[in-house]
């Protein structure tokens, strides 16, 4: 199945030498030596944040490494130059497709490239857009990757997501790359298209190219890999042959081998009243989900990227339309149509992306701290500056935010301090339920601990917390119970006694049930 013996003796298609990538003091990638052989499929696995995307970006030229050298076919890659990487023969199929939505399928497929007919032609021919040639080559390309019945004149934005993923793959394929990088290419595909993608990867290897396959379904990885590389904390921790790469082994290497320590079950919650109940909750890409949340309980939500964690929180918050199911809050039916309804009913949300979803970056710490409670704290709609300052000072003081002045722009603070302000905003609102979406993302270690201590203290006072996080360690440390999500559903509900990384990862990487798969019109 793999390349011929003669090919394996060839020079590597790509090589990384002592590549490091750091953001400030944090090293996110540290690869002493890595070679991608021609004719082989190298699979890359790791937890969220293990450095997979960074490694991929370094190879594709979108991330410039802090130090080290990247060679493509023995030629050094100029760092941070995606165009150079492409010229050297690297093609990347990203998870978020950089397709131009308004342009047609054909135009997207040949974007940044000339048709064969135009390549040999004179200056005028080359300057003009070769419509017929574009159509012809686009159709050939689609047929080549096994997509049929697509009108190449259709704007890409009108296609369903799985089909767009296939177009993106065809586009990369059309560049005739030496190194083909596939970043979780099957995450949005049903089984049939997934099979086509895997076949394509094999074909590319058989033709003598190198494939770097970033996988999240371990069964697929096992199916396709000639070699499995496991990343953890930015470092390669295991280099496995297909025979060695059992799912158990991969998971063990991904999570670090150590079993979940029993963290002195100090905070077993007293059997308290149920605050929030959801039954058959559905939304776009979510559910049906059943869950129950008790006062004083911290419940974690684990799962891989795209498993529906954020969707669950956003649907509970009323920030994403609910399509079905019932939610009860404090025993009463709860049907938020806007987050404002949720806030009024006693729910708060610390969103995933501080910059995009939480903060008014150019405004003061004070404004950010009191944002969610402006109306409640106003006197007939009027905010007195003194009152506003006093409240903000209390919020900042309670959370130990380190700053010069509450009037300084919040953008000046460190990630940890920014996040504390967001927490303070909600704790000041005194909700009954607090939803946390990646509460410690981009937060330094010290602040992480402080934030979790705050969560813990608030829970001890009766707050119910639902925390979605990619950081398993943290969930294991702080939660009373962990829900594992996959494909928009809760696939496991683990009490503290059953906590283990292996169990969570196994559940999170399980195959979708046939009913949940998205079959496209391919």
């Amino acid at each position, binding site marked *: 199945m793999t390349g011929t013996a003669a090919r394996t003796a060839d020079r590597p298609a790509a090589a990384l030498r002592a590549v490091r990538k750091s953001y400030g003091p944090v090293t996110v990638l540290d690869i002493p030596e890595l070679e991608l052989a021609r004719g082989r499929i190298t699979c890359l696995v790791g937890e969220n944040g293990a450095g997979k995307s960074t490694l991929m970006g370094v190879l594709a030229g979108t991330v410039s490494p802090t130090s080290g050298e990247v060679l493509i076919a023995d030629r050094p890659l100029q760092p941070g130059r995606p165009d150079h990487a492409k010229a050297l023969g690297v093609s990347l199929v990203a998870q978020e497709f950089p397709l131009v939505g308004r342009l047609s399928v054909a135009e997207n497929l040949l974007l940044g490239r000339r048709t064969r007919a135009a390549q040999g032609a004179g200056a005028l021919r080359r300057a003009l857009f070769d419509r017929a040639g574009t159509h012809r080559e686009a159709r050939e390309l689609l047929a080549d990757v096994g997509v049929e019945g697509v009108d190449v004149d259709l704007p890409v934005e009108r296609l369903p997501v799985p089909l767009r993923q296939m177009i993106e793959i065809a586009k990369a394929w059309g560049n005739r790359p030496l190194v083909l990088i596939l970043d979780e290419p099957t995450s949005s595909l049903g089984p049939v298209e997934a099979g086509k993608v895997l076949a394509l990867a094999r074909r590319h290897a058989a033709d003598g190219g190198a494939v770097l396959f970033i996988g999240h379904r371990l069964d697929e990885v096992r199916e396709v890999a000639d070699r499995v590389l496991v990343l953890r904390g930015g470092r390669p921790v295991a280099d496995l042959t297909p025979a060695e790469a059992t799912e158990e082994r991969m998971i063990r290497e991904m999570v670090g081998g150590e079993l979940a320590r029993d963290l002195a079950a100090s905070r077993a919650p007293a059997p308290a009243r149920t605050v929030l109940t959801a039954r058959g909750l559905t939304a776009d890409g979510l559910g049906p989900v059943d869950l129950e949340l008790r006062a004083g309980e911290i419940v974690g939500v684990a799962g891989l990227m795209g498993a529906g964690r954020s969707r669950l929180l956003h649907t509970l918050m009323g920030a994403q339309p609910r399509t079905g199911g019932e939610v009860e809050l404090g025993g009463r039916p709860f049907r938020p149509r806007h987050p404002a309804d949720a806030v009024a009913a006693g729910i708060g949300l610390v*969103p995933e992306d501080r910059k995009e979803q939480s903060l008014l970056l150019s*405004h003061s710490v004070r*404004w950010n701290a009191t944002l969610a409670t*402006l109306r409640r704290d*106003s006197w007939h709609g009027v905010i007195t500056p003194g009152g506003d300052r006093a409240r903000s000072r209390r919020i900042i003081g309670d959370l130990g935010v380190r700053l010069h002045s509450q009037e300084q722009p919040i953008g000046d603070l460190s990630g940890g301090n920014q996040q504390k302000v967001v927490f303070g905003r909600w704790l000041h609102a005194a909700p009954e339920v607090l939803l946390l979406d990646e509460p410690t993302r981009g937060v330094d270690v010290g602040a992480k601990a402080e934030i979790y201590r705050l969560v813990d203290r608030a829970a001890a006072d009766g707050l119910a917390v639902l925390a979605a996080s990619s950081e398993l360690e943290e969930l294991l440390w702080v939660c009373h119970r962990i829900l594992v999500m996959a494909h928009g559903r809760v696939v496991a509900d683990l009490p503290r006694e059953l906590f283990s990384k292996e169990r969570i990862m196994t559940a999170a990487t399980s195959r979708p049930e046939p009913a949940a798969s998205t079959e496209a019109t391919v």
Partner: protein
Amino acid sequence: MTTRTAPAPEKAGAPSRSRLRTLVDTPEVGVVLACFVVFATLALARDTFASAVNLQGMGADLAQYGLIAIGESLVILTGGIDLSVGALLGTSVILMSWFNVRAGLPVGLAVPATLAVAGLVGLVHGLAVTRLRMPPFVVTLVTYTVAQGVTLAITSGTSIIGISPFFGDIGQSYLAQVPVPLVLFAVVAFAAWFFLERTYAGRQVYAVGGNPEAARLAGIRGDRRVVSMYVTSSLMSAFAGMLVLGRMGVGSASGVGVGWELTAIAAAVIGGVSLTGGQGRVLGIVAGAVLLELINNGLTTLQVNSDYTNIVLGCVLGLAITADRLRARHVARRS
């Protein structure tokens, strides 16, 4: 001279370092200073510039532009833009005089009726922007075009004469030597300041303009704020139209309000209002309007060919934007 001005920057004898820094960080300082400098220069250059008559004329002019600049700024703060303010002002002038003269309505009905029409237009803007997610530029461009057409259609190019003396009383009289329009402008400016700085709804306007998603997830019903700002902007146009009608004495369709939206936008931008939304204060907007009026009037006083006026105003706008960028970069680099 007009409304409240900045805490006089030069006066500080030994200001604490942080106080001085706060002042430097205040984006409005530059415009306010520029107002003083331009005023002083022109007053020295021509005696007539600072004469009572000229000041009164400038005050009345300022009120017209200033009112729509405030309305415009409220929309810009939400992250939108209102291209219709000038055209709607022109239509309001005609509509008000038409109601008053042709329809024979008393002032007490003609004015509210016009305000209601304008308010409705603003409501349509707001709903189109929030519910239908239409780009504000396009929505208000439609009104811009239609309103100019309506103005001409009603009058067929002629003026409507014989309006109630009430309009003259509002537009042309003085309160202790101060033009009444200017007094009204000051009242509106104060109200806008109070709304933005002292009410929760005002703070929410900034939040929506600064980061709509963050505002939404913090439980702020941003759409309501946006709609009400479009309504307010249109009401400001009609209100300013009433003052313009009073000053002209007849309902004339000839070029009234044409291009004024650009003056309004320029005043806002010069005053430090960010076109991306969420940033800007009333002090700056007022100072921006004052500066534009000073320059406009100053060029007339200096007998500069009026053909050059727009060149100068355009350069001032370019300068203001550049200065603001440099200041923002300086602040960003320091932190």
